[in-house]
């Protein structure tokens, strides 16, 4: 059995295997030993205990910005003059016959050029469309991969593929794997936090599940309204001092039982309650942005006005512009506090129609905050140890969508064969544009990168060998990269 799993296989230390939702392991250990309920040598094996990676590596935390629904790479990152030339013409038969479509009627489908203007940015000359001016301003810190591909054609399976490396249910997500492999460095916060802006995604809660890994590796959802973590606030009418008094009484009672029964799980329960109590203070402190300078808030776009007309991703009351900006800033604050993996989900990129209107607002919503995040991390010297990833489950077709009943081609269909993602920090090269697609953007032409390869390379930057980070379930040693995965050495700085 591999040493990772071994650390928390169901042994006499089982109690620690099930402890503390990626929360301060060291704190747990020391508390229990301080209380004399646990021997010191037992205390190092909490699931959230910081573990040594396989290799030396720069990355310590990951901010994954998940653009669920699939942004159009052809209108944002991958200019295709030839496609513009062929606008409204039929797709070559050679491609048409083999391709699958969701809504497009292939016999009458025609190519759809992009009205966007692309310009080169930074010293590296990375190309962005005119809707992403802020991202362009940090081009030299970005790695643009134009040759991603996937097998999954529908949203939920595709999103599972991106989060889990395989599109089946019941598999752990990236954040779970990273916390499983490395533990958590936060004393008071979960090691895996999920933030959302706008409407819900196709995948819902399955996008941050722990699958067959112990559920303490699942993502904890921080919310945009009410309390940041569910049930964080004391019941109405119950003050902090009585919460403390109650927890003291509880601790005494539980310790009494522990002395009688000697079940270490009781010690673990005591620790969970203490950590919960600490989180009651730490989480509000985390989301309190009053300590941030106005300059920082403005840089991220916190408090920006919402657009007057609502678009597909904004459901009016959800204040998506502001929430997304806050989420990016919160992600930085979480990294500062030792959170291992943050998933910012923004699900409104499925532009089958009205692409120009909706994509513009999506781009405007995310462009400034993400650029600010990268600039901010760099200013604070955190970019090298923090990997930022921007991407989605697949891309969009070069064809216009001529769904029956729709008058005009105003959108694009799903396209898993070639699309673009961005990465930054975590020891990856900045200013690099990697891979290319054919002249209309249908297939990858150069340097294809499968999602399993992306994951293998991400893990590598965290010092984890994707072939060795395994978990035995139903007799098989599973890994994030399923049966594939290849580290893309060219990306590593």
């Amino acid at each position, binding site marked *: 059995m591999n040493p990772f799993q071994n650390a928390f296989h169901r042994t006499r230390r089982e109690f620690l295997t099930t402890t503390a*939702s990626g929360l301060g392991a060291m704190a747990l250990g020391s508390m229990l030993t301080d209380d004399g309920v646990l021997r010191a040598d037992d205390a190092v094996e909490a699931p959230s205990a910081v573990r040594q990676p396989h290799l030396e590596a720069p990355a310590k935390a990951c901010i994954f910005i998940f653009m669920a629904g699939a942004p159009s790479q052809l209108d944002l990152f991958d200019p295709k003059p030839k496609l513009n030339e062929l606008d409204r013409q039929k797709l070559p038969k050679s491609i048409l016959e083999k391709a699958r479509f969701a809504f497009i009627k292939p016999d009458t489908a025609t190519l759809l050029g992009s009205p966007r203007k692309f310009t080169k940015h930074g010293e590296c000359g990375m190309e962005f469309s005119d809707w992403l001016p802020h991202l362009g301003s940090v081009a030299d810190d970005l790695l643009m991969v134009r040759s991603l591909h996937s097998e999954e054609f529908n*949203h*939920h399976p595709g999103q599972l593929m991106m989060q889990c490396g395989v599109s089946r249910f019941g598999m752990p997500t990236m954040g779970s794997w990273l916390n499983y492999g490395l533990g958590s460095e936060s004393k008071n916060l979960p090691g895996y936090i999920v933030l959302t802006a706008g409407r819900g995604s196709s995948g819902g809660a399955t996008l941050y599940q722990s699958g067959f890994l112990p559920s303490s590796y699942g993502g904890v959802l921080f919310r945009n309204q009410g309390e940041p973590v569910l*049930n964080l606030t*004391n019941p109405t009418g119950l003050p902090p001092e009585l919460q403390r008094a109650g927890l003291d009484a509880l601790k005494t009672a539980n310790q009494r039982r522990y002395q009688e029964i000697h079940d270490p799980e009781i010690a673990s329960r005591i620790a969970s309650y203490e950590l919960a109590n600490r989180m009651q203070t730490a989480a509000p402190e985390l989301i309190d942005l009053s300590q941030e300078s106005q300059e920082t808030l403005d840089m991220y776009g916190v408090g920006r006005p919402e657009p007057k007309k609502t678009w597909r991703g904004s459901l009016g009351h959800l204040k998506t512009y502001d929430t997304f900006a806050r989420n990016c800033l919160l992600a930085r604050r979480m990294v500062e506090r030792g959170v291992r993996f943050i998933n910012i989900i923004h699900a409104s990129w499925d532009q089958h129609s009205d692409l120009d209107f909706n994509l513009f607002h999506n781009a405007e919503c995310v462009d400034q905050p993400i650029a600010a995040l990268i600039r901010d991390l760099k200013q604070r010297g955190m970019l090298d140890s923090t990997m930022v990833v921007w991407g989605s489950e697949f891309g969009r077709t070069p064809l216009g969508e001529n769904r029956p009943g729709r008058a005009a081609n105003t959108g694009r269909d799903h396209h898993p064969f070639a699309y673009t993602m961005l990465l930054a920090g975590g020891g990856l090269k900045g200013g690099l544009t990697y891979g290319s697609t054919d002249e209309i953007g249908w297939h990858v032409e150069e340097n294809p990168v499968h999602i399993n390869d992306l994951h293998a390379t991400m893990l590598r930057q965290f010092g984890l060998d994707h072939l060795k980070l395994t978990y035995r379930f139903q007799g098989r040693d599973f890994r994030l990269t399923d049966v594939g995965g290849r580290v893309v050495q060219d990306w590593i700085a």
Partner: protein
Amino acid sequence: MNRVTLRFWIGVCLAWLGVAGADAAEKDVQFARDIQPLLAKHCLLCHGPDDSEGGLQLHTREGALAELDSGARAIVPGKTDHSELLSRVVSDDPFVRMPPEGEPLSSKEVAVLRAWIENGAAWQVHWAYRPLEKVAPPQVANSQAVRSEIDNFVVAKLEQENIAPSPEADRATLIKRLYYDLIGLPPEPEVVDVFVGDPSEEAYEKLVDRLLASPHFGERWGRHWLDKARYADSDGYEKDNHRPDAWRYRDWVINAINSDLPYDQFTMEQLAGDMLPEATPEQRLATAFHRQTLTNTEGGTDQEQWRVAAVMDRTETVGTVWLGLSVGCARCHTHKYDEISHREYYQLYAYFNNGDEVNTTVPQSSRLDPATVERIAEVRSALDARREELATTINDWLPQLQKQAKAASDAEAAYHPLAVGNIHGPEGVTFTPQEDGSYLVGGANPANAKYTIEATASVEPITGIRVDVLPDDALPAGGPGRAKNGNFVLNEIRLFAAARPKWNAADMRPLVAATADFSQASWPVAGAIDGVEGAGSQGTGWAISPEFGKPHHATFGLDRPLENGETHLQIVLSQTYGGEHTIGRFRVSAVTGKVPGGGLPDDVQQLVLAETRDAAATLRLVRWYQSRDTKSQELENELQSLQPTPSGKSMSVRVIAQRSSKPRSTHILQRGEFTQPLEEVTTGTLATLPPIMARAGKTATDRLDLARWLVDGNNPLVPRVTANHVWKHLFGEGIVPTMNDFGVRGDPPSHPRLLDHLAARLIDDGWSRKALIKYIVMSATYRQSSRHRPELLDVDPTNRLLHRQNRFRVEAEIIRDLSLAAGGLLSPNIGGPSVFPPIPPGVTDLTYNSSFKWNPSQGEDRYRRGMYTYFKRTAPHPNLITFDCPDSNVTNVERDRSNTPIGALVTLNNQSFVEAAQGMAQHVLMQSALTTDDAKLRYALRRCIARVPSDQELADFSKLLNQSRAWYENEPDAASQLIGYRPAKGIAPVENAAWIATLRIMLNLDEFITRE
């Protein structure tokens, strides 16, 4: 002897022991225990079922001994020098050494391999695929520790390690344990007191019986099954649409578990209920087990892709739930470790490939009102009490039975003609007496007929009735029937007996056994006493084709002899087949002496005549006797009437039905891709398991055959896997710890013989899960204390040897149920549409397009048991998920038991739990008999932890209570806020709030949410 010499001798002895020990270990090499896991760990990935690098396959002996591509042989039995495998695993050359990557084999592993080859390389089938082994339970030295055979197996193993089992847990722990395990609710303090006050064995058994009979048992154990069924109220995937009928299947499960539907039947109805002969609506409903798969209605999907995905899920779920095998691994390629080929996966898949989702109409399940639920429990206790009464008075009734059994087994049967007074038949039918005492039937020849014969017997005691059917030239084809070919069908024979020549319904006497000199295939004589009539093939009964024109006879045994002058008989011969299938000439006689079945069922006769009976045998006897006890019968009748009566309303439910036209062919799919079919396959199972048989008259096997094959008693995996599941719920861990993997990579059972014993017992008890559960909870092993024994940490760190019971946190739903029950808020209602308890704001925003709205239930539905909470797959209730309720997307046979701060926040602050504390304050403060703080605190604590708390414990809570009072004294507004909408009547708000603040902490005690 001086000290140095002593030390020297000890050293010598130890050295000798060490050598002898190693030697013994290697001589005693067992393939299954020592070799197979080693091969699975190091070799099978490249040299197994799926891959044969270098021509070597190590999953069969044949493959292991075969000549390799290189000309060498990996294993030559008895010849270590010639065995390439050995030289490769010990080689220092990295290009030669095996395995090529990872750690080399340890010297111990090499020694074991060497010894095994030396001894002839004996091969054994993997333990889980072998037939069940019936072994006598081992003897143990400490017979005090044994209550049942389970304990023999466990204690014998402990004795090998010189470990004594743990003592029995105290009574309060035992009752709490039984309540949590069997119904998932806390025992009320009054009930605990009664139980603690009666330390008798009978009190324990009575409690077990009562809990097994409780309707809440079906909820508790039904929920275990729903995990396996991946039950949910929505479609899953992006749109995740509402499934308005899903709960109807959930109710089917609860009812099936409550009525202890035998597991074989339970299996067949869920996997193939639609294919059962004369399938009832409920049996069709049961197939919704496999309708629980996800449905993808995302725009632009290829529906065939998701249909295939659902069929794969059905295939793999059967593998996990019934076989304990990860057949899913063979979806893309032959299994790397277990013998499941890529082809076999699609053979299994083929069983489900033509089962489509359709709608069917079933009666709505109606909800029981709490008063009825209560009455059911009362009647069940009365039945238990009656059984105990019968058990204590066994000496009053047994001699009579013994007399009967002895008479029946001794006396040869004799037949006595009856003096017939009257015979009636349908209009126009005539009965002409013959010289041999028989009657020839003539006149009209209706399609159906009922003959009623009134007669008097001249002998006593009558043990049965004989019917002769005779040929006659006057009959078509010579008879004995009046159908054109001479056949007849006797659908049912009924006997009434009285001391006067007048009969009413109460005079009916059960005929319990039947034999005939000849029965037509599919029309066995037993069909004439099964209570089923019916027209044509709808009915059952006795017929004699093709033996026409000959005399035949059938004998029907009474369940007890007719005595006390009950010589006036009325015999009804009911013939409902149609087409003139009536009897043409017949004679009825009374039987004395031995009749089929001896008047008593065979097993009962044995029990009655046995010289000694153990407790279990006595119980079986009492149970049987109770089944014919009038008083019990009345109670049973009442129980029947208390079951929910069909509301008369029906509803549409989505289920599985076999595709009737254009059946699909099944192809192996390359890498599991639905777009890449390879060659066609037909239905079939795994070669490594016993063969599957098609039903009579069919060539290919189908889904119903598959279901039967699982539970026909020959399949060794199903009873083992099932017994392991039951065990797991009663001990927290399985005998096989890898619940979902009985394959070669899974952990072997800690007590293989015990597992087989339980598996065999399950089959022997007619697949009754209640019987198995009872058998286990009656054992001393189950009743052990769960207190940890630190001195055994090194010998048995994970309690694999069961030196104590396990202690574990209860499931998500049960945590809330316990709190609501302690708070007096829990609704006892069973079944019905799913409910919407409070949910924190924002949770459902994350659904697709934020489309789902959760309107919290009001009134009682707010406090239904957790299992009734609406389950939205993409936005499940966070209280459930936080405590590891499975996500329902795939089958789950083992829940995690996390212990996290997020969970702590739920029980501390979540609205449902705060309301439970408010309810508990109302309940406790209104107990007028409790006048002091201590009395109230003690009562409240006992509602949570059952046992009587110590003074010290009371003092701690008393301190918290006073702290709370002091605080609320100055904050009356906060007090009102905490009380919310649940004030305790007549109690000052400050006092009320202080109690809520205190009781809330009790609901968080580890001991409360832990099954100890």
